[in-house]
């Protein structure tokens, strides 16, 4: 049960905003079938597949697939992508972003690599030229959204509860609740996890994977799917290099082996080192995406 509104609770994600303690919107995991924001009392109808009627012959085409009888049971060939629901919704998000010229980045890393710290540093630099908005993903708390809120940019927190990644539906809902201007940059900080966020397209333009020098230079080999899917990799906390055993060249080589298209940056969110190069690259992409 939801402890804020007492609704029968679905264990799904909840949207929250810094400084608005009574604001919250549930995102039901049943895709679009069941959205019920409590904020305005609106309740969408459940979406069902269009009705279809057919007589069962032995075998015939059916909705892209076909089915046939096998004794008393019936086998239906689907050949459907497991993540199809998510992918379709992600494409809708992507279309929306393109229509409004919003450049969306999906930030991915293990917990504590410095996603929020990097946003806190890069946003003030970019903000002078381009409006920025942020979606924060965490299992619990609005701590990260509060940190971004302090910068004065629009931000919304997605609390995924037991969920270990953001999905396209959560972002779809969050975007509707967030005041994003046309021609802006949207930073989406995913839940700290290097495994399944790689599988869930959110509709972003680019995936940014962050690792820090305290994590081991073989990380790209341990989590190849994530590094394979990413467009750029940021090595953070380089200010700590003198104190840890971390081979930057080796790490970069490992990352490039998994993904030879990967863009590579080395920065410190703490000292600001390397941020200018990343900022330059981002500004170029913002102009020409």
């Amino acid at each position, binding site marked *: 049960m939801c402890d804020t509104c007492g609704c029968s609770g679905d264990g799904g994600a909840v949207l929250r905003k810094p400084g608005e303690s009574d604001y919250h919107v549930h995102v039901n*995991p*049943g*895709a679009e079938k069941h959205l019920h924001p409590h904020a305005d009392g609106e309740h969408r109808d459940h979406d069902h*597949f269009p009705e*279809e009627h057919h007589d069962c012959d032995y075998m015939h085409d059916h909705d892209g697939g076909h*089915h046939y009888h*096998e004794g*008393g*049971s*019936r*086998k*239906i*060939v*689907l*050949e*459907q*992508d*497991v*993540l*199809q*629901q*998510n992918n379709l919704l992600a494409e809708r998000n992507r279309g929306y972003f393109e229509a409004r010229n919003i450049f969306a980045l999906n930030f991915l890393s293990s917990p504590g690599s410095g996603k929020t710290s990097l946003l806190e540093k890069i946003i003030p630099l970019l903000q002078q030229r381009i409006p920025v908005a942020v979606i924060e993903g965490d299992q619990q708390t609005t701590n990260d959204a509060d940190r971004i809120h302090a910068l004065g940019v629009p931000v919304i927190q997605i609390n995924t509860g037991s*969920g*270990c*990644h953001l999905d396209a539906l959560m972002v779809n809902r969050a975007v509707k609740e967030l005041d994003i201007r046309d021609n802006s940059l949207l930073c989406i900080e995913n839940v700290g*996890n290097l*495994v*399944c966020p*790689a*599988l869930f397209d959110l509709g972003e333009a680019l995936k940014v994977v962050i690792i820090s020098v305290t994590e081991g230079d073989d990380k790209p080999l341990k989590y*190849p*799917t994530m*590094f*394979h899917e990413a467009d750029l990799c940021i090595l953070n906390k380089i200010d700590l290099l003198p104190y840890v055993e971390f081979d930057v060249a080796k790490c970069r080589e490992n990352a490039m*082996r*998994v*993904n*030879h298209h990967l863009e590579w940056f080395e920065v410190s969110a703490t000292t600001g080192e390397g941020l200018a190069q990343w900022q330059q690259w981002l500004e170029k992409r913002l102009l020409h995406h």
Partner: protein
Amino acid sequence: MHEMSIAMSIVDAVVANAEKEGGVRISGVELLVGKLAGIEAESLKFCFSAATKGTLAEGAALVIEEPEGIGECGECGMRFPVTFYYAECPKCRSLRITIVSGEEFKIQSITIEEEGE
């Protein structure tokens, strides 16, 4: 454990399809999970049976086919088996390899039971 949320999306999808087809029970599900798809088949099997509890798919037999990874060399066009995202072309030693198979992640088919047939 990300296989659990994946298992739940599979159950959602197969149940939606079974309902659409008028099935009262799902007795079998066939998946295609490429060796490079980033999914542990064993752990998915375990989560699947948990995720089906109380749904039309409870007790369904899960069959997972796991296609091998195949890479294609960007220099010489050679195709060869790969077990990872990076590989060296056995012919020309190039590292510019594109994965052409092994990343599949699909629901191939479901078997449903219909009432009174």
